[in-house]
């Protein structure tokens, strides 16, 4: 395997500037690829994870994202930073994956419904082993993810980039190719929608 001396090579390529990196990738230079991956893997995987909902899928998806970045780098206009452009690709790919997952989810629900109505065994769902201490935390985590995934697409993108990726409104505007007031409005509406969903759940929870 050619990447086994990765740490040494990373140190070697630490000094790469953005134009050097872009030029290196366009030349299909290994050091440039290594620098690209070590520099942006956390950003890509974490952002993908907030959309697709689990680290395993996010890591698989990140491979596609990096290939996409390399293949389409010649279209990068340099009007924004490379990081912004990478965020844009990551968000688009992640949203597409979520749509695929949703379609698959609908098909699976239909299939299980079919099995139920035809009296076939549905089989036991795999459940992660969660201790009772973690149970409440896990429940809240799922509630939060469900609330975020219910947000309209643009609100979800803006909220995730702001809340989880600490992107400024200006950066989000560049990533989403929209104006600053639109970003402000999206994040404000996302907060209100989340609050509505969560507060409703908490009040229902108290009643039961």
């Amino acid at each position, binding site marked *: 395997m050619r990447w086994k001396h990765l740490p040494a090579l990373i140190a070697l390529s630490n000094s790469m500037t953005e134009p050097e990196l872009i030029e290196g990738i366009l030349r299909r230079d290994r050091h440039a690829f290594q620098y690209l*991956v070590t520099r942006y*893997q956390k950003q890509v995987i974490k952002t993908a994870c907030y959309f697709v909902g689990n680290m395993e899928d996010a890591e698989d998806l990140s491979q596609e994202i990096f290939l996409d970045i390399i293949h389409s780098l010649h279209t990068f206009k340099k009007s924004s930073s490379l990081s912004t452009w990478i965020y844009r690709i990551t968000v688009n790919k992640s949203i597409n994956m979520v749509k695929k997952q949703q379609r698959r989810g609908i098909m699976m629900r239909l299939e299980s419904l079919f099995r139920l109505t035809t009296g076939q065994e549905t089989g036991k769902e795999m459940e992660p082993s969660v201790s009772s201490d973690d149970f409440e935390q896990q429940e809240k985590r799922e509630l939060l993810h469900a609330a975020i995934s219910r947000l309209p697409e643009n609100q979800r993108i803006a909220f995730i980039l702001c809340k*989880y990726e*600490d992107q400024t409104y200006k950066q989000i505007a560049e990533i989403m190719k929209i104006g600053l007031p639109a970003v402000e409005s999206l994040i404000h509406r996302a907060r209100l929608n989340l609050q509505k969903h969560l507060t409703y759940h*908490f009040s229902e929870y*108290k009643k039961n």
Partner: protein
Amino acid sequence: MDCNQFKSNVFAFSEKTLEKDTYQAAEHHVSTCISCSRLLSEYKVLADIMEQEKNAGPNPFAATRILQRIENEFYKPKGLTSKAWMRVLQPVAITFALMTGILIGSYTARQDQTPVNKMASTSENIEFLRSNLFISDFADEDKLLVLNK
């Protein structure tokens, strides 16, 4: 600030993104209202969860896997992959099997068209069958049956 006003600001309050005046009013209300302080504690748990998720890093081997994928994409010679080979070989194998079947079928059909009397008209045939099938003794009626055909 009353309970409804607090509820409509609770998320921003837990995130500390409220304007200073509103924040102070909310802070004052929550210190005197049990119901709102309960609601706030729920939001604080969510804020902690979000913070944990923000700090979670990816698998340390993820980078290696990405680089391996890049290596396969850009540096490995692109011959026919096993999948591609299968796509070529499968139809060839099926065609071969079909052709063999047709050839065997037509050959045996030709054999069947040989007149029956030619096959079993003489006692030589019986001798032949006896020696080849290791049948030691044909019954006389069998012999007659074959001979009468």
